[in-house]
């Protein structure tokens, strides 16, 4: 009897989990489906789900019209560069906050987060003018710096939370064995916090990959990443949903694949220390 109840509860839980997952995934699924429709089918009312003439025409048009590989390469450099740079800066910062906290550590953490409270457009014009002066407009270097700065508070916060879970005694033991500060961070702390660092890395890579405010405003032809590639398929006069969906699918495909392969790492990192 008890087993029957358990099985039933498990089935309900599974069904609920699938329902929620499908609901969350639905917009992406719809985008992918639309990318295989004709423009007329894409906006037909009532909408069609699967019973349409599947076509690859939109992908053909998008590939012919845009230099996809250039946008992709820019996305990889910008998202990858800003994330790695952010991690390099954030690991020592989070170490000091987690293991040698001062009276003001909590304030500093909150102050860092407060920079995220200002809408990005509030600093658009100053940054734009700065970029003109520094010659960074439409450059990948400029975007790597800006996106790194945008995501740095989140990276520091996440790493700080993970580092707090690591017993300080282990680091102390390393110190007693004569490890230098650098050795302590590189050889002791970092390997122990790998799941946390990996999930921080992945999450920030995804955030930087999808960032569409700065990447649209600070780029033109040379440094434009996949967000600009998607935006270029919206049209004020003419139907565009199918082609836009194809472009969107192509833009999210790499990150979706990356997420798929690293989901175990991501989940274990995000729930790191959750059960104590």
């Amino acid at each position, binding site marked *: 009897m008890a087993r029957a109840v358990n099985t039933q509860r498990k089935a309900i839980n599974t069904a609920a989990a699938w329902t929620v997952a499908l609901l969350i995934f639905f917009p992406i699924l719809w985008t992918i489906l639309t990318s295989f429709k004709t*423009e*007329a089918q894409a*906006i*037909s*009312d009532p909408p069609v789900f699967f019973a349409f003439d599947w076509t690859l025409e939109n992908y053909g048009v998008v590939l012919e*019209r845009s230099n996809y590989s250039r946008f992709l390469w820019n996305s990889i450099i910008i998202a990858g560069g800003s994330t790695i740079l952010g991690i390099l800066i954030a690991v020592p910062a989070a170490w000091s906050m987690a293991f040698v906290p001062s009276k003001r550590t909590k304030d500093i953490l909150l102050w860092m987060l407060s920079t995220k409270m200002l809408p990005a457009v509030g600093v*658009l*014009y100053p940054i*734009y*003018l700065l970029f*003109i002066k520094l010659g960074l*407009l*439409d450059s990948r270097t400029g975007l790597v710096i800006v996106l790194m700065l945008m995501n740095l508070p989140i990276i520091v916060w996440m790493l700080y939370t993970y580092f707090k879970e690591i017993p300080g005694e282990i680091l102390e033991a390393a110190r007693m064995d004569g490890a230098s500060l650098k050795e302590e961070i590189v050889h002791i702390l970092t390997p122990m916090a790998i799941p946390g660092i990996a999930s921080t890395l992945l999450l920030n890579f995804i955030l930087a990959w999808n960032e569409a405010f700065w990447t*649209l*405003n600070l780029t*033109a*032809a*040379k440094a*434009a990443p996949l967000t*600009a590639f998607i*935006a*270029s*398929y*919206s*049209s*004020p*006069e*003419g*139907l*565009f949903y199918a082609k836009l969906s194809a472009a969107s699918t192509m833009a999210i495909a790499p990150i979706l694949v990356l997420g798929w392969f690293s989901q175990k790492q991501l989940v274990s990192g995000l729930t790191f220390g959750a059960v104590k």
Partner: protein
Amino acid sequence: MNIKVSTLLGACAAAALCTAATAETITIATVNNGDMIRMQGLTADFTEKTGHEVEWVTLEENVLRQRVTQDIAAKGGQFDIMTIGMYETPIWGKQGWLVALDDLPAEYDVDDILPAMRGGLSVDGTLYAAPFYGESSMVMYRTDLMEKAGLEMPEAPTWEFIAEAARKMTDKDGEIYGICLRGKAGWGENMAFLTTVANSFGARWFDEDWKPQFDSPEWNEALTFYLDLMDEAGPPGASTNGFNENLSLFQQGKCGMWIDATVAASFVTNPNDSTVADKVGFALAPDAGKGKRANWLWAWALGIPAGTQKVDAAKEFIQWATSKEYLALVAENEGWANVPPGTRTSLYENPEYQKIPFAKMTLDSINAADPTNPSVQPVPYVGIQFVAIPEFAGIGTMAGQEFSAALAGQQTAEEALEKAQALTADEMEAAGY
């Protein structure tokens, strides 16, 4: 020696060698419209002729406006050519943000540009952007449904006739709606259309002292007419319909009539996309018997931002893309129906182009539009479906939200007009008018 020099000069005159020596790469910001996409596809012809390379930055229309405004105001220099409209050109030209196109060579034949287009893109007689394609608005209707309703569309209909036809064509159970009109809020969306309706009913945005006129009986009459008509003969959810939504409805055979941009004619008559391609007729935008028709005037034009380092190459591109030769090049590659319309007189004199079913109606609609006298009453501004002042984009969109809410049934015409009047008066006062 002399022979050698003259030979070299001759080669230079033939362009290829000399320009190749100073070849530049120009960056052009544009929108994702059919005509622009075709232009991108034909860029090789320009590069072959001049040696200059072109980098395209295609942006969503609103993002484009924001980006080019930001770049031109901050002198960012990211673009050498910008695709701008008839709204921005006179404002930016006056502010000195654009390079004047006053030294175009004789063979470009600037006098061939349609007078309405040239006027709308000039400040004090100086051209600041060259029209790449132009449009007005007109009535597109289903000939079969019109016949079924026992009516015949006149070439120049009145609003009264349109309303009668719309009601007779409507069959809500069969998902046929007599008329599809814009309802989505925005200065370039529902307000573009509603302002033309208001013009034809004798209303205006401002009087000669820049006082907003939404409290006038003419505006009330125009808005009430629109709301009643849409209520009886419009599609459901019309308050979120813009150009693309109505295009889709018309192509699916759900609209009896659609009053919108002339450029839509080529979409609705294209059998690849439209289920009603062979059943579409055209007529001039309606009037209310007051001497003004409800048709707008718009051009997507190419302008050069002041401050670019590549003015010469940019001018060469504009001359190429807006020339008679370019129109012929598109015709040769894609057929006359796909030539960018509404810019040059010579195109409409071309017997080949005259065979296109919507060519004459497009030209007549453009010619019927007068941006300096948009309404029956005198106005202090230029522009038909917009007011060419920097504040208009904000005011137009806010007023558009009120009218869209009225269409959605959230408020009455009177309430919408009252709010539009109040917010326009506030904005104009703040702007120092």
